[in-house]
């Protein structure tokens, strides 16, 4: 399969405008005349009954009673309020929208708002919610064999419990929307969103309008990472509500503090497990519970639980198992999608199990990995253990595993207080939305009479390079340079009823939809060209900006053909649609093949730990990620490195901290520390697996890349287990936790 444009390492379409400052983010757009600004009054307590709200004079305050439609922003279920009515369920919950002609005035009014709240005792831990059986997502169980009997019969039995923390998305561009009222209830909403269709639905629901009156547009996001799926929708709904009530265009740009207080985060998890092993370290039985802190409302916790459950065994297996996953209700902000969507949390389980078992049985954890690889998941989908072995072996070869281990051992023998550690990790990550019907996409392709092309699809560009990848697909179809493809902002008016750009599926879904649209136009153009060039449409080649008949005869320029089609009154515009084939799930039996394919990755990391203070630094990381035949290796490499560093942050330095009353105290970058440039290992070698090819039916045989490499950061935790000599670590592995782990070793 030779391709002229697909597979090439083209840079991000906006790279030069990003760097020159010309790329316009939402807040950079000129504001329409008469634009007012909104700010949110947020709850200062975690739980209570709202008795009233004292507001300053001189601003317009919008309360639940002002909502013409429903006070409901739920992305999936029902009954999640935009503004609290009587019950306040988390610190930072929006209580009122303050609107003023300037942003300063709105922000000052929001800060001056004084809610009267009768406080109630908050539920602040997963344990407390489990005790009372307060579930948002009731337990889902995947089981196989007789786990009790297998545990009882196992030569070695272990039990474990550990926790993994949440994570703030910290997209550099905070949540923002600009709502511009039109005629007859129409509302144009500019939103920094991963899910324009959901913004449309939620805005329409809050305004009480049919969907057609709401148009949502987005050219680019300043980062999303899952945080601008459901959360962008309510921010946009608040702006639209304020615009409806005041009649002004209204912009709502959350301050960083408000953003971190009021928007959801990655789900923290509590893990409890029992495992049985044989002498050789073969896992015979596993009984595990994964409980997520869903926060105060459902949001998308169902999907997160599903992915945690389906990734809890990662690439490993056990003949008898019972894995239970659930989400509990607490008085925290409602947790939401975050890159990996429960998958990274699920995959932590087996690392704890295998490292504990290795320590107890006196085996090397590396041998336990290989011994326990599975050829299918516990729910019956085929895995490729050969590919897992290959990525792991290649990562180890790249890192010179044996040399690293020997160096660590000799360093540790010499130094009185510092310790080196080395760890590996490998994983299989399933690609597709867990909810089968979400796996669909649309696109719209126009060819103009000068031969230039305009591409619209339902995916959003949040830095991941989706627009350039899909443009490459369209350019490939037409044999045109990628610069000939103009990129339209994502709009619900052009592409309706879309899914979120999420679950790593952006290029798979939208690339195929755009391919279908482009092929539909090309087929019509080919018929016209064939008549003029006296050949069959099938024999034509679209390449290098030309349409060429067979046999070296002179063809015509693509633009000439476009003009000819117009003269002959042939449509040069088409929509394209795609739905992922073959996926299915039986929720009754908890069996099926929910993923279109798996992508495989492996990593080796080396750390240096200070046993006096608990500080550590990652010295090197070697990553190998399977991207099939990459659509764009430069973009994919950027995704791999960026995801790895983001994962390192989640697992080591980023800690969300609530005080005893459930108030979040990490509400800005001064207190919440994402990785900086120095935290990136000085040796960071990431690469794509060579000679790999995705299954038939995958877009140009490529594989998705957005989320899976985030999991590779687990290798850093495993290196810390090695350096501390403590096989089970609480996460994030902050200096404080590591020092305690060393002390209690």
């Amino acid at each position, binding site marked *: 399969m030779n391709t002229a444009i697909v597979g090439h390492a083209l840079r991000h379409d906006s790279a030069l405008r990003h760097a*020159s400052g010309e790329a316009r983010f939402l807040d950079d757009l000129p504001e329409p005349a008469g634009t007012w600004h909104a700010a949110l009054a947020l709850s200062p307590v975690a739980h209570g009954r709202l008795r009233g709200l004292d507001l300053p004079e001189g601003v317009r305050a919008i309360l639940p009673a002002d909502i013409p439609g429903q006070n409901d922003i739920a992305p999936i279920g029902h009954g999640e309020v935009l503004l609290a009515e009587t019950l306040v369920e988390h610190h930072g919950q929006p209580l009122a929208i303050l609107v003023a002609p300037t942003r300063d005035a709105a922000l000052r009014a929001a800060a001056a708002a004084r809610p009267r709240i009768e406080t109630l005792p908050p539920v602040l831990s997963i344990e407390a919610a489990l005790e009372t059986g307060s579930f948002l997502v009731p337990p889902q169980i995947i089981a196989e064999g007789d786990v009790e009997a297998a545990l009882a019969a196992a030569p070695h039995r272990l039990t474990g419990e550990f926790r993994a923390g949440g994570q703030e998305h910290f*997209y550099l561009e*905070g949540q923002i929307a600009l709502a511009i009222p039109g005629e007859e209830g129409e509302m144009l909403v500019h939103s920094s969103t991963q899910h324009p269709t959901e913004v449309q639905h939620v805005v329409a629901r809050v305004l009480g309008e049919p969907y057609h009156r709401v148009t949502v547009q987005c050219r680019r996001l300043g980062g999303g990472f899952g945080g601008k799926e459901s959360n962008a929708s309510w921010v946009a709904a608040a702006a639209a509500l304020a615009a409806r009530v005041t009649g002004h265009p209204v912009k709502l740009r959350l301050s960083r503090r408000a953003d971190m207080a009021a928007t959801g985060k990655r789900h923290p998890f509590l893990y409890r497990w029992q495992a049985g092993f044989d002498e050789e370290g073969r896992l015979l039985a596993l009984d595990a519970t994964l409980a997520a802190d869903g926060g105060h409302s459902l949001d998308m916790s169902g999907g997160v639980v599903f992915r945690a459950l389906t990734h809890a065994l990662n690439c490993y297996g056990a003949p008898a198992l019972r894995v239970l996953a659930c989400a509990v209700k607490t008085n925290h902000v409602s947790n939401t999608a975050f890159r990996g969507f429960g998958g990274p949390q699920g995959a932590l389980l087996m690392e704890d199990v295998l490292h504990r078992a290795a320590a107890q049985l006196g085996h090397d954890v590396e041998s336990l990995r290989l011994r326990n690889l599975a050829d299918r998941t516990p729910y019956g989908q085929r895995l490729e253990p050969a590919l897992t072995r290959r990525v792991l072996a290649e990562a180890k070869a790249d890192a010179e595993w044996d040399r690293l281990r020997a160096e660590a051992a000799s360093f540790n023998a010499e130094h009185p207080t*510092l310790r080196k550690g080395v760890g590996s990790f490998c994983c299989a990550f399933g690609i597709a939305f867990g909810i089968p019907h979400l796996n669909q996409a649309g696109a719209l392709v126009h060819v103009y009479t000068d031969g230039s092309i305009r591409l619209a699809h339902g995916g959003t560009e949040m830095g991941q390079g989706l627009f350039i990848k899909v443009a490459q697909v369209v350019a490939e179809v037409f044999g045109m340079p990628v610069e000939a493809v103009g990129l339209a902002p994502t709009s619900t008016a052009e592409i309706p009823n879309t899914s979120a750009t999420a679950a790593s599926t952006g290029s798979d879904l939208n690339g195929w939809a755009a391919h279908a649209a482009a092929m539909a136009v090309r087929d019509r153009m080919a018929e016209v060209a064939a008549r003029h060039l006296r050949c069959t449409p099938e024999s034509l080649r679209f390449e290098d900006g030309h349409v060429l008949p067979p046999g070296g005869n002179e063809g015509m320029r693509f633009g000439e053909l476009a003009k000819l089609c117009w003269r002959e009154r042939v449509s040069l515009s088409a929509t394209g649609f795609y739905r992922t084939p073959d996926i299915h799930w039986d929720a009754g039996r908890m069996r099926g093949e929910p993923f279109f394919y798996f992508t495989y990755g492996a990593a080796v990391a080396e750390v240096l730990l200070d046993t006096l203070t608990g500080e550590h*630094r990652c010295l090197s990381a070697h990553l190998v990620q399977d991207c099939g035949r990459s659509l764009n290796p430069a973009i994919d490499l950027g995704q791999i490195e960026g995801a790895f560093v983001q994962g390192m942050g989640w697992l080591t330095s980023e800690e969300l901290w609530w005080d005893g009353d459930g108030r979040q105290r990490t509400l800005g970058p001064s207190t919440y520390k994402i990785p*900086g*440039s*120095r935290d990136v290992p000085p040796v960071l070698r990431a690469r794509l697996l060579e000679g790999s090819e995705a299954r038939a039916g995958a877009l140009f045989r490529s594989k998705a890349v957005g989320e899976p490499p985030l999991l590779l950061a687990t290798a850093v935790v495993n290196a810390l287990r090695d350096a501390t000599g403590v096989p089970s670590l609480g996460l994030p592995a902050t200096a404080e936790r590591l020092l305690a782990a060393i002390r209690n070793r």
Partner: protein
Amino acid sequence: MASIEITLNGARRTIEAPPTTTLLDWLRAEGLTGAKEGCAEGDCGACTVVIEAGASRRPVNACLCVLGQMHGRAIRAVEGLGRDHPVVRALAEGGATQCGFCTPGIVMAAWAWTRSGGDPHAALAGNLCRCTGYRPILDAMAAMSDDGETAPGFAAASSQFGGFHLPATLEEAVALRAAFPDAMLLAGGTDLGLRFSEHREHPAEVICLLNVREMQGVTVGEACQRIGAAAPYAEWLEACRADARFAPLVPYLERLGSRQIRTLGTVGGNLGTASPIGDALPVLLALGAVVECASPRGARRVPVEEFLLGYRRNALASDEIIVAIELPAPPPGALLAAEKLSRRHDQDISAVSLAACVEFAGETVSRARLAFGGMAATAMRAREAEAVLTGRSLDDDAAREAGAALRFAPMDDHRGAAAYRLEAARGLLRRLALRHARPDLPATVHA
């Protein structure tokens, strides 16, 4: 009323906006939307612009600067480079942008660095990127070079814009302080700037001390440094780098904020806010600094230990101004060290910090001054631990005993639990002994 004048991207501009408008808000309202607001607290760097003066280029967070402070200065925003500038090209072509929101700030930090040089990580410490993982940014920087351009110099003159006062002499500053006892005393604004950027305040009276002649610069003397209260950390850091006696402070001062913060933040400000986690304070305590204050009643010299009274409380009278800090050099042969524990190596606030000046008679400690930050309501000396070390050789046993003698009851918060702070403080004392006993070995995980 006078107007604020600045040079922006090489062109003179007269500004009518209120003097406590942030530079970022003003730039964006002028349609220069390259600089972004990512946090409004000086921690993310998306708003980075550069102050130029002659050949010098210093990055600042435009979210924390107010227009009044910038009067007379030359500022370069990303639009002043343009899409053909090699720094812009290097980042664009190196795959160093993903979402692109942080990129203009990174361009400006990198552009300043092509002049000032040094560790590229130090140049990026004030700029967060959530997408790339930084590797392509660092690679792009490795290929950058200085474009050789220079800007006009800066000459301070006293000015007033409504209630915003910019005195140029100490006499004027003292008189203003007496006339407006409730005015906000503003230096670099890296702490107080949050009142403008985050809380959107416009205080009626502000006395900005940045231009006061007697408060400028770091002067090196026989026995001490004299740090002007308005001298930015960047200048103190340079003075330490150039003076072997103070050189052990360099790695510590490089972790104080970021380059952006050190362009504006001052030691005087650290004393003024008297925060328990002000990173300059343990150093001042360990070296026995003296604070020079001025008021209409005359000058006064206060030892720093007497200056710091409690949680965000100091001995400054309501009519007084901090003029300078006299920082004695460590005696020859003394061990000077400063350590900092924070969640992140760069651009973070300390959980615990330790500054130590240990003098020896032969192998024996003759005098030890150990000062901790983050362990009490104010930065504080650990006299019990000092007593344990005195008369001993500085080895691991002595450090353990000194640690056991610590009598702090530190706070328990998001930067660290009390128990962790105490245990880690003890670890820092042992690290001090390790530095002394095994100078051949790395003492920390940091390169």
